[in-house]
């Protein structure tokens, strides 16, 4: 399994080319060009709209949809849960280089008077408690059964791709999570 993920990631990220010192060479590499093609295709072929409409058809409404930010490798759908003094943010990341998804949660502290958001802290999904598990189950159900995506194995998140760098992530720090989703894990 792990081998498969590593091999797929290898298609999009050149080995032994430093994203800082060999920037020109990096941007011209076949792997990076492939990533750009996938990125553009996903942005323009209506995939994200299709995903959102599939969710709405199953009565799963997200509070915000983000178009892909620069070279992120995924579409992000956000949902916010407001409690008295807290906001919980659930993010669904759907990779466009491989049919996998991951779900992340953050706890947001809010200003007592203005209710404006102050700071973000990543939390585990199970910390959200039982009352939101139904919501999450619903989301996973749509992702797996209607969009035919697989959950990205959590235990692979921190596996390092040797000799691979990307943007500001240095060689030796680039993980499978970075390869399939984003530069920063919350």
């Amino acid at each position: 399994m792990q081998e498969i993920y590593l091999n797929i990631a290898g298609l999009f990220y050149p080995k032994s080319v430093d994203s800082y010192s060999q920037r020109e060479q990096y941007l011209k590499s076949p792997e990076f060009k492939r990533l750009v093609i996938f990125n553009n295709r996903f942005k323009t072929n209506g995939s994200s709209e299709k995903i959102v409409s599939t969710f709405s058809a199953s009565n799963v409404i997200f509070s915000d949809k983000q178009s892909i930010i620069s070279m992120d490798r995924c579409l992000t759908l956000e949902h916010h849960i407001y409690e008295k003094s807290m906001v919980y943010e659930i993010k669904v990341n759907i990779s466009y280089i491989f049919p996998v998804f991951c779900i992340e949660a953050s706890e947001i502290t809010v200003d007592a008077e203005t209710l404006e958001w102050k700071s973000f802290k990543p939390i585990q999904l199970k910390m959200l408690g039982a009352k939101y598990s139904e919501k999450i189950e619903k989301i996973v159900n749509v992702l797996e059964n209607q969009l035919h995506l697989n959950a990205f194995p959590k235990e692979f998140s921190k596996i390092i791709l040797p000799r691979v760098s990307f943007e500001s992530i240095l060689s030796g720090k680039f993980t499978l999570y970075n390869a399939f989703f984003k530069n920063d894990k919350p």
Partner: protein
Amino acid sequence: MHPLLVFLAFLALGSCQNENFQNENVQEHFSSDVKMRYVSYADLLNNRKFTDEAKDAISKNFPVGSTNKDLFTNYFGVYIDTTKIVEIIRGGDLTLTMHVQSYSQSDTKHNLVLYSKNCVDSFIPFIAAYRQEDLAVMEAAGHIEDTKPTSIMDLETDSKLVAGPCATSVTHTVHLCRDANGNTQMDNGDLGNGCVGTPWDETYTVWTIDLNCMGGGGGGAGNPPSNFGGNGFYNTGVHGGSFPNINTNYVSCSDCLEMTEELADFITNLSSGELIGWNDLSFPSQRTIVNYLEANNYTSNVVALVKKIILAVAQNYTIYGYNFESQTISAEFVSNILYPELDDVSDEDTEENGPDCESFNFVQTGQNWQEAALTNIHFNIIILGPNGLGAFLVPFPTATLFGCKINPPAPNPSITPGRAGYLSAQALLMSMNQTINKYKGRKIPPMMIDTYFQEKAKKNHADKTKGGIINFNASSYSVVPTPYQTNFLGIGNCN
């Protein structure tokens, strides 16, 4: 600096040829036959004869058993402040006087006096004792070094002599000046002697204790101490029939650690490698360590940890090459020991000019997303390099991409392009100052500074812009990058 060395009183030093200790910077400075000067411990060690014999003595006697609490009966192991050693030559008598760190609870201070007859004989160690009350009186008068010794003891024989009537004093004026580095040195009046600025004079009293005085049975009024009186040591002429004249001047220690039994144990139990590290530490660093040891009651695991740090100093480990964080000791504490220069860096030196919020040109790039790219973000941090403290530039030459929502979820207010610039500048400035405060004055690899700053910037920016991102070294961006500008008045107002 070597404020505190375990220093051994050596019994068999060879010839003390005057030129052995000759130092170009210091010269005779007295009007009479007395010559007085400071000798650095390094100079003493540079004297090969001295080094060989001292080394020999150290290897034979080190370490001193921790049960030997009585300084005077175990003369070969005393703690000496080696930063200040006074050499006095009068006639054929040479003495070296230094401060003894005593941990006995007494109202007496001690100096170790090494005496050499005719500058050819071996050194004979003496201990000069000073009453605390006498010292206090002289200190109040501003002349603590002129205090009269109460007694002098020959360490070879344990014979003690009350100085009383056998001590005479001579007063001499010494001409002092500062060298280019601000150190005090003797001014011999020659051109090119390294003196800078106006020289000044200081008057010292040298006490001469005539051992013949007691030994010869004369001296009148003094009561001979019982352990000295009849043993005939000086009468029988053990020292060649001629009794020494001990010329000395009280050597104080302002920067000495207060010696406790635990500290003495700690130092004597250091391995030779650890001892080198200990002696390499500056006084403030040693003070930090001793405070830490005392706060932890010298428990064995804390002592073991501190020894590791000391060894790291001796082996010139860098703070990042040694994983102190995993220990029960903070990297910050280690850093304070290794790099006391940290305190020399004031906040004024390091406070960064604010990034100008007008550097940012936020443009809508998605349905609910705006971006700006900035080239050449940079800031300065003062770190410890191979040549000491110096400013180091942390550069991000390639375009850095900033992105955030235009309309974050309610109840957060929407973020105009100007506001986005303002918040991004705020986040950058905050992260720069956090980075500077964490690493200023440290010996730290540039990459660690980079990484720390990037992490802080991303976090601060996300908090301020309700989930925005920063991408250092973005590989593609649709906005036109603008140059980074600073504003010494702050970050400006782009709201």
